[in-house]
């Protein structure tokens, strides 16, 4: 004989005549033997009756509805919905945009990025501006000064070298040719460039506080101008005397020393 567990599970099937003849026989036999299961069956019968009465209520409720027009209304609603769905498929969002744009997560992320960027522009514009300003020069100021100094030194060295060559040329010339040397030089491009370079160097030497260098450069400039001015009326003797004077004053040597100092950056 099958146990109470099986019997109770099949009480509902017994009450609705869904058991096979053999199962029914077996269950009825069990109910005769087991008062507990038999009592359970009686309780279930009461509930079945209660549920049947509830069914009547639902059927009464069902009768209140106009079922003849309901299918037509529902069909119309379904067709309208299908039309709407089809229209939404051909909406304004083209192709790929339609795939991701209506998704709230993507929209949220997109808006977050846009708002973040805009708020950064609004609250920290000086940051972006500063970056813009500083962008072409990423060197510290001390380094820039150093570069300027080096450039000025190079320019000065060049000026001194060219001046030295001019004086050397003058000293080596025989007196008759040396008489016309400065007059000829004045019109030459070489001496004009030299004098122009000196003007350019003035401001740089002042800024960089290279006083000794500036002094010698000034002397050279002054000397050149004086020589050009007075050289026209010179006799051979005057020229020789002038050449001796320049040699005695050791101008070329001084220029050399300054050049060396500049090279060693000791000025």
């Amino acid at each position: 004989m099958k146990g109470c567990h099986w019997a109770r599970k099949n009480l509902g099937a017994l009450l609705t005549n869904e058991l096979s003849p053999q199962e029914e026989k077996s269950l009825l036999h069990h109910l005769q033997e087991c008062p507990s299961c038999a009592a359970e069956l009686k309780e279930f019968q009461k509930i079945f009756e209660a549920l049947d009465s509830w069914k009547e209520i639902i059927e009464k409720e069902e009768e209140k509805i106009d079922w003849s027009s309901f299918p037509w209304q529902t069909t119309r609603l379904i067709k309208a919905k299908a039309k709407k769905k089809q229209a939404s498929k051909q909406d304004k969002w083209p192709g790929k945009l339609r795939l991701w744009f209506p998704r709230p997560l993507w929209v949220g992320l997109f808006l977050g990025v846009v708002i973040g960027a805009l708020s950064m522009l609004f609250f920290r514009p000086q940051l972006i501006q500063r970056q813009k300003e500083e962008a072409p020069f990423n060197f510290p100021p001390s380094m820039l000064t150093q570069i300027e100094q080096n450039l000025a030194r190079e320019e000065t060295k060049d000026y001194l070298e060219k001046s030295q060559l001019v004086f050397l040329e003058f000293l080596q010339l025989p007196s008759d040719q040396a008489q016309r040397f400065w007059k000829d030089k004045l019109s030459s491009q070489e001496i004009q460039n030299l004098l122009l370079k000196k003007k350019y160097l003035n401001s740089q030497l002042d800024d960089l506080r290279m006083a000794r260098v500036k002094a010698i450069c000034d002397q050279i400039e002054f000397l050149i101008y004086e020589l050009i001015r007075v050289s026209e009326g010179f006799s051979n003797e005057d020229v020789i005397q002038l050449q001796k004077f320049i040699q005695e004053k050791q101008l070329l040597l001084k220029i050399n020393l300054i050049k060396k100092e500049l090279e060693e950056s000791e000025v």
Partner: protein
Amino acid sequence: MKSKEWQNEYSAQDLLVQLQEGDEEALNLFIQIYQQKIFRLAYAFFGDREEALDVVQETFMRVYEKISHFQKTENVQSWLLKIARNICIDRYRHQTSKKRRPEFPFGERNMAEMANDGSLEKQEELQPLIARALEELTPRQRLVVILKHMNGSKFEEIAQVLGIAEGTVKSLHFKALRNLRRILKPVLGRIT
């Protein structure tokens, strides 16, 4: 009505095939056949007429949308009730997640009080209590009771609709009846 529906079983299948082929008039006829059956299920599940009518409409909408999934070998009624079952459970979950359903007003003590003070003298007075008692069951137990007692489905059919074994359906039915008995015990004895 019930016999008429069973006679329509074959024609219902034909109607679905016609609907698959694009004949929208077939839907109208199909609704006529099954609308009340779905209503009974939904009304018993929610105990609310408007909610039940919404479920009926939504069920047929889903039939229209999923008509391509229907296979000719399938039992039409089981397929349809499965759709209705899913809609009922979805709506139930939606309701319970959005707001708690009102507390069961006829708790065991209240029912006992009502039985003792003689306020439950008639069978009709028990009916709303049954509706409320059903709300206390789990959705699966409730569906088994409704399909069994309101729609008159067999255990085998219920198993198809719920997608579970027939033995499990019987167990669920037994548990549901026991729970109903526990809830309705104070009043059941007073009803004549």
